[in-house]
Structure formats: structure tokens, C-alpha cells
């Protein structure tokens, strides 16, 4: 186990370096710079700005400066806003995380329920109903679902605010929008996982021993049936918690997803690379957590290693 963790962490450092490097060069290769606007500044003004942000240096010198910063987790100062990259992440990541946790709660609760129901009632009405709901969740994009929810619950019924993150009630609509999409996938994964598990010999044994149906499904079946869901939860959690651009924009949640996309549009090099490395770190750690979770859920996996 220790070897696994150390190995994964070492690999993670390489991944982070690759992400930092690719994003650094890719964004600089994109046409236009952070200070290009409709109204162009005179050359002398531009030169002062470039000097301040070291944009006049050769790219490799800039890259060296950047890597030295990354090694200290210091991504420097935004070129477009008055905050440092660290502050931007600290200011905005909590909103995304809160939204992500709510969405994930909705997605897992409803998804697992629907999946178990569908597997248990395979090819019967319950299965079809559950799978139709999950299909809708998967296929309706958030930029459609979000406005529809706003229209009904905010503009029509005035129950919930249409925008901004102000108190718990303002997270309900965005979390539902985001959660329903992930719910669909989780329901399908749970269903297939459960179907396979419920055919296993040990389930038959349990039933033969007279274990109640509820215990068979929820205790013996679900534990193994959830393995595919756990695999999916790693990247899904990273995606959810690190922020969804569309949902954050539609609902004006000041999360990191919006800052990230804005930094690409603005060519705000330090913010973009900083947020990407932050995301990548998160993803590496979550995948590691998933690997550890396998072992906890299924001792056979742990023992094989």
C-alpha cells in the first residue's frame, strides 16, 4: 500500500510538470495577449506593461521563471485583475467546492437509488422508469436544464433566487442542475454493477441461507456493485468540485470554473496555468483516493497487490 501511494505521488509530480509545461506553451502560442483590447495602447505604454510582467523576455526565460514559481506553488500575479493567482484560487474555489459537494450528494443519493431500483426490477416498469430518468439526466445539457429550472422555480414561482451565491437556498438550483447530469451516469453504472453482482454465487448462497432480500441487495450486493461507481467518482468529484463553467455562469456563482474560462479568454497566463496545476493536483490526489477506496471496499483487490 505504501509503495502504491509513493509511486502514485511520484507519478503525480511528473503529471503536474507536464500539465504546467503544456499549458504554459499552449497559451502563449495562442494569438493575442492579455493587453490586446479594441483600443490599442501606444507602443511606449505597451512596453512598460510588458516589462512589468516580463513579457518582453525570451519565452524560455519566462518559462524558467514560471517553473521556479510552480515549484514553490507560487503562480504570481494575475495580469488582468488585482489579485494573485493564489488569492483567486482561495477566493473562488470554496464556492465551486460547496456547489460540487451539494451536487455530488444529489447525484450519489438519487443515482444509487435509481440504479439499485433498476437492477432489482430488471426489465420491468421500475427499471424502464429509472433508466428513462437517468437518460434525461445524461442527455439534457446544463445550459438547457439550468435556464428551465430558473424559469420555473425562480421567475415563475419566485421560490428560489435566479442567480448569485447568497445562502443555502441559492445553491439548490445550480446543485440540482449539476447533480442531475452526474446522477444519470451513476444510476447506469450502479445498475450494471448490481446486475453483475446479483448473479454471483455468494449472493445465491446468501439467499439460500435465508438472508432477507433487503440485506442481500443493500448489504451484500451493493458493496461490490458500487465498484464501477467508485471508479467514476474520482474524476467526477474532481470535475464537480473544481467547478463547472456553464452552471457557474448561468447562476452567477463566483466559483473557480468561471475564473478559469475567463482567464483563457483574457489570456491571463498566470491564472490559467495556476488553476490548471491546481486542478491537476486535485485529480491526482482523487485518483489515489479511489485506488485506496477499492481496497477498503473489496479486500480481494487489496490482497492482489
Amino acid at each position, binding site marked *: 500500500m505504501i509503495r502504491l501511494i509513493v509511486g502514485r505521488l511520484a507519478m503525480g509530480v511528473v503529471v503536474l510538470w507536464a500539465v504546467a509545461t503544456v499549458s504554459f506553451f499552449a497559451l502563449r502560442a495562442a494569438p493575442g495577449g492579455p493587453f490586446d483590447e479594441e483600443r490599442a*495602447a501606444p507602443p511606449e505604454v505597451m512596453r512598460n506593461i510588458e516589462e512589468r510582467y516580463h513579457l518582453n523576455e525570451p519565452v524560455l526565460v519566462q518559462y524558467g521563471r514560471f517553473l521556479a514559481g510552480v515549484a514553490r506553488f507560487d503562480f504570481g500575479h494575475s495580469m488582468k485583475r488585482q489579485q494573485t493567482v493564489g488569492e483567486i484560487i482561495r477566493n473562488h474555489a470554496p464556492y465551486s467546492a460547496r456547489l460540487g459537494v451539494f451536487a455530488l450528494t444529489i447525484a450519489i443519493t438519487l443515482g444509487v437509488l435509481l440504479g439499485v431500483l433498476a437492477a432489482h426490477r430488471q426489465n420491468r416498469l421500475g427499471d424502464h422508469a429509472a433508466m428513462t430518468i437517468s437518460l434525461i439526466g445524461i442527455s439534457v445539457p446544463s445550459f438547457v436544464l439550468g435556464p428551465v429550472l430558473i424559469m420555473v422555480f425562480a421567475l415563475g414561482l419566485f421560490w428560489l433566487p435566479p442567480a448569485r451565491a447568497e445562502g443555502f437556498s441559492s445553491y439548490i438550483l445550480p446543485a440540482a442542475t449539476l447533480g442531475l447530469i452526474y446522477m444519470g451516469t451513476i444510476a447506469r453504472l450502479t445498475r450494471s454493477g448490481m446486475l453483475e453482482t446479483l448473479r454471483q454465487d455468494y449472493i445465491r448462497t446468501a439467499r439460500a441461507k435465508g438472508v432477507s432480500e433487503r440485506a442481500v441487495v443493500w448489504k451484500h450486493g451493493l458493496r461490490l456493485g458500487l465498484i464501477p461507481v467508485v471508479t467514476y467518482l474520482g474524476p467526477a468529484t474532481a470535475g464537480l468540485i473544481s467547478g463547472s463553467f456553464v452552471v457557474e455562469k448561468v447562476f452567477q456563482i463566483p466559483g473557480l470554473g468561471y475564473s478559469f474560462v475567463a482567464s483563457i479568454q483574457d489570456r491571463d497566463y498566470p491564472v490559467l496555468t495556476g488553476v490548471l496545476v491546481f486542478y491537476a493536483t486535485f485529480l491526482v490526489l482523487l485518483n489515489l483516493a479511489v485506488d485506496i477506496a477499492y481496497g477498503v471496499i473489496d479486500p480481494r483487490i487489496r490482497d492482489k497487490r
Partner: protein
Amino acid sequence: MTVPRARSTTAAALAAAALACACGLPDTEYFGQVPDVSDRPRHLRFCNSGEPEGLDPATVSSTTAMKPVYALFDGLTDYDQNGLPEPSLATHWDVSDDVRRFTFHLHDKGRWSNGRPITAHDVRYQVIRVLHPSTASVNADGLEPLKNALLYNRGAARMVLRDTAGLRAGDVVEVLAVDGKTAAAWNAADTSPPDANVRRGSAPLALRDLGAPVADAYATVPAGADVTIVELSGDPLRPGRDTWAYVHFNRGDGVYGWVPYAELDVAPHAGVTYRVRVVAPRHTPGVALTQAQLETPDPPRPAVDVAGADVLMLPEVLGVRVLDDHTIAFETTHPTPWFVSISNNRVLRPTPREAVSRWPRRWTDVAHIVTSGPMRLVAWRQRDRIELARSPTYWNQDEVKLDRLTIFAMDDQSAATNFYFTGGCDALTANHVPASYVRKLKGRYKDFEINPYLGIYMTITHTEVFPSRHFRRALAYAIDRTQIPKFLHGGQVPTAQFTPGVPIAQLSDADLALCGVTRDTPGVAMLMITGELCYVPPPGLDFDPEKARAELELARQELGDAFPSSITFKFNQGNEGHKLIAEYLQAQWQQVLGISVTLEVQEWKTFLSDTKGGRYQTARFGWIGNFPDAEAEFLPMFQCDSPNNRARWCNPAFEAAMAEVKPIRDRKARLVKLREAERIMIEDAPIIPLYVYVQLNMQKPYVRDLSPNFPDQPPLHEAWLDPTWRQGDGPDGRPAP
């Protein structure tokens, strides 16, 4: 000034469609809920068009940032309800006979929020800050008319400290080369030239406020570290024991501060050779010129070599002088009748030296900020909202109607409008209602208004790709602009004229007389000073298919085999309207001229880079002015060397006409000449104007004294809420304030 781009997405369209069709819009007088405000009559909640990039008047540039910045920082003048300057820190001002010297007289009531009086020195400090290279302000060109402003901005204007090499102490010189290399050569080598302003202390330097004891120092510069002199206290030509230097220490976020001049005892670049020449009389601070002298070209001036020790870059080279604590004079290179129009601009809003020096990049944080305006900063939740409260130190308390002002950062147009609908904010201005909503709102709700805006939507033509004037004119004649508002639904004002304005048909009788037009004159007029000055731009090449085809025929004869059979048209993503316009132009040019048009859509920054770099044939473009003045804000982009000359149009007749405008002192005579210049441009068709921008404004019926104006700078602090609006008996149901 940059304006937030409309970022309407499919989501916006969908929300609007859903709102309009499925639910049905509420059948009320006002759009959405009108909350009861009796518990907060002095608290305005304003939906701004996004997150301000900062709050420092010296460095911010978007209209989004101006809303909080102008509430926090007072200016020599402020915006009145019409968006024009009204006295604020300055009570009045004088303009010299040669229209090159502007003297502002300040009253003594102005106070910073820390209690310190606001004086003319604070205004001068802001000018220095905006222009000094270490600030790296994008707004530096806003002070371009000042003597030597841009020269100073690139570190190339210096003062001679003693008589040497035929120069006299106090002369202002322009640097041509340092150590034998020009600025371009240094630049090409990716390095900066050594700067004679750099000094070191053989002992550590204790940075502090002017005259403060060492114990009050807020930063220490290690012995032997480089600092750069920004200015000297007292006469720079006669530094004495009591002379102090204000220096910049560039490490981390940087820090500025005063130290006794004598402590800067090491001058590492004293031996550097500067090749310099004296600036021309019109650039020399303190020199007035007669009309005849104004029209005389600059005399030749010899270049000489001097040592770094003998030249310092100091603010004294600039056209700004403090005459006494309450009087400040600005000097411009050319007659600049519109200088007063920039006196309310961010570049002339003083910033507090004591805060800026300590935290140059962080001084607007809530913990550090010192303000001068009607409101003070209480909290700033990034990308969410800014909370402002009435400032107890503001000098003009009677004018402030609000105790509290909340400015929401709403990046998304639909979200802003929805938020307004549910009563979340009381008002939204600027272009912040999605186009898909507009057609449902227009004429239906009393709280929705369309007002003209100081901007022009146009196409630009790369004149090196299309050198034929006839071809470009054919493109212009082929567009029927009147169709555009019919498919954009936004109330846009179709125009073939370049300088934007208000439709002449909508002017008052007095303004008609002022502009010298009759009500049936087609086109627009720009009101520049209420009751005093009006500019009617020359007519453009309006829709005429016959003329279009005739011009095309001439182009065909002229170009022969080089005649282009197809063209490409570029536009940027992010706004449905750009696409609709592109498709309309494509259809018009195909139908009227038989030219096939390929459309190309690009991401915004790529689009900016390509149009600036000349990698396009024709493209859309928009231009917004800071204040209504064609000479200062609109026509300069057509000058050959303008960084904004995307059409790459360079016309000697236009250059000559613009040069002839410069020395004219009488404003009306100037406008006549200017109109000639604009006519040369529009007749040559490097651009094709399509429509005058509009702003879409919404405010709840209880909001008072928040009038949208031409440059979109409503004085928010003067607004107030009237909880008793329903019992109103004034005009249109509103009680008289």
C-alpha cells in the same frame, strides 16, 4: 475605454425563449417584482456589468470598473446627470489664450478618508503616477496631450542638472540614445538601457513619508540595492541638506517612499552616455506661444552627448505645475480645447500617496484603501459584489443621497436581467440586457428604456488588400442600414456617418439651432457642450444600389485582372448580433454587387490580434468614446501612425487636414476643419459605419435621480429610492423630488 463584450450564450437565448413562450411574461406595468423598499430608502442595489479588474483609478480601464471607482474617488470635476463635467474638487478653471494652459482652482474642503486635506499636490501626484513607467498604466495615453507625457512614459524625457555641452541647467531634453544604442536597439536585444535615475545607499535606506523620522519607516531597502528616483522635494537644480528623494524599490510588489537625498550616495550609472537634444518650444513647460509661433514648424536642434550624472528623469519635465496648494496648471503641446472634458477622467482623479507608496499593488484592498469620493469601501467579495457606504469625510454631503450602495458583479446578461426581474437589484445600465429579451421588453414595460450610446458599430476594410477606392465605396453603398435594427431588435440607430450622435429628428428646437440643421435633416448630431457646441458629422455613403454598381464598374476597369471576385469577412464570437450582421452583409454584397463573401468567425483575442496585424480582408469593429469629441476620441484612429489604424489607411490629404486642425484656437472653427477631415475619410471608405450603439437601461419605478447618460457614467451616489412611489402625483406618476 473598453466596454464589456456582450457574452450572451445559447443559455441566454433559451432562457429568454422559455420565459417568453412557456410562462408568458407577466402582464404588468413593470418587468417583474417591484419590492417594497420602505425599510431601505437609502440603499441602492446596482447590477453592474461584471467584475471590475481593480479599483485603482490609475490602472483600471473598463466602464465596469468606473462605476465603483468614480463613487470612491473624487475628481477635479465629476460627471453630471448628462455625463458632462461639473465642478467638484475644482470650483472653476481658466483657459489661456493659446488654449494650451488650463488652470484649475481647488476649494479647501476636500478631505481624504484619513482626514488629510486634498490639495493640488495630490492631483499632480496622480499625473506622475499614471505616466511613470514603473506604474505601467494602460491609461497613460489618456494624458497624451500634456507636454512630454509619452516621452516621460518611455523614460526618454529628462532634465539637465547643470550647464554642460551647450545645454543649460533646467533644460528639458529628449533622449535619442543611451550608450550609443537607440531605444529600438535596446529593445531588440531584449534588455533595457541603464537608467541614470538608479541610485544605491551605502547604508540601508529607511523608506517613509516626506519628512518623517526614521522610526516611522514602513520599509527598508538593503544597502547596495537599486532604487529609482521618481522625484525630488524642492528645486532639483539646487539640492540641499533638506532635499528628499521619492524612490521606487522594485522587489516583490514594489514599494515607494521618501529618503533624504544625501543618503543615495552611490550612482551606478553616472558615467552612462546619453545622446540628447532639447525639446521644441511647444514641448517646453512654461512657454506660451502666439498663433504665428503655433503654426511654425519646430526648429532644428543639435544632438549632444551628456553624462548620466547630469540628466535626471523628473516630473518637472511634464506639463503640470502646482502653483499653490489649491491651484494646478496643465500645459498641452497643442491647443487642446477639449482638455476640460478629461478633467473628470480617472487619470486626473487623485490617489493617496501614503497608501499607494506602501502597497503599490494592494492599496485598494479594504484594509489599506484611502478614498476621497462620496462613498467608502466596506467590503469586496470578488466576482460577487462590492459594498460601499457613505463617506463621512466627503466634502459635499448634501449631494449624497445614499447611505449604502451595493454593486453586484453580474457577468452574465441573462442572470443580471433575471436577478432584476426577481427584485434582486434596483437598476442595471449599459448594454446588459440580452438581445433576445429586448424585443419582449421594448414598449411594453415602463421600467425599460433604450438610450443612445457614444459608440459606433462598423466594418473595417483592409485598404492594402483593397487599394481601390471605388471598390471600397461600392461595398459601402451596397448596405441598407435601415434593415439592421429590424433583425437585431435592439433599437439601434442605423447610420452611414462615422462620428456617433443623437438622431437629428429627436433634437430639441434649441439644439437644432445650435447644430445649424433643420428637423428633416437626415442623420445624427453630437452634442458636445450643452447649449454651446454641436458637431454634425459629414454624410456617409448611404444605401444606393445604383451608385454601388457604378463604383464597382469603375473598380473593375481600374483593377482589371486584379479585381477580387470574392472577399472574406471576419467577426468575433460571443454575440449573436455579430453573426446576424455578418450574414446580412454577405447577402447584401452578393445581391447588390454579385460578390461572394466568405464568413469567418474567431475567438475574441485572436480576432483582435488578426485585425491589428492586418491578417484580414474585411471585418466588424466597434469603437466607444470616453467623451463626446470627434477630434479627441474618434478621428485619431485614421492617422497613419495610430496603433488603432486597423484599416491601414494612410491618406496625405487627411493627415494634412488633421494637422491644420491642431493650431486652431476657436472651437467652432476647429469643428469646421475637422468636418473636412472626416469627409475625406468617409468618402474614401476605409470603414463602413452601420449603426450607433444604444444602451439598454432598466430601473425599478422607485429609483430616483439615476439618469442614464451618453458615456454611461451615471453619478450613482446621487440616486435614491422613493418608497412612496405608488402615491406619486408628479409627471408620469412620479412625485417631484
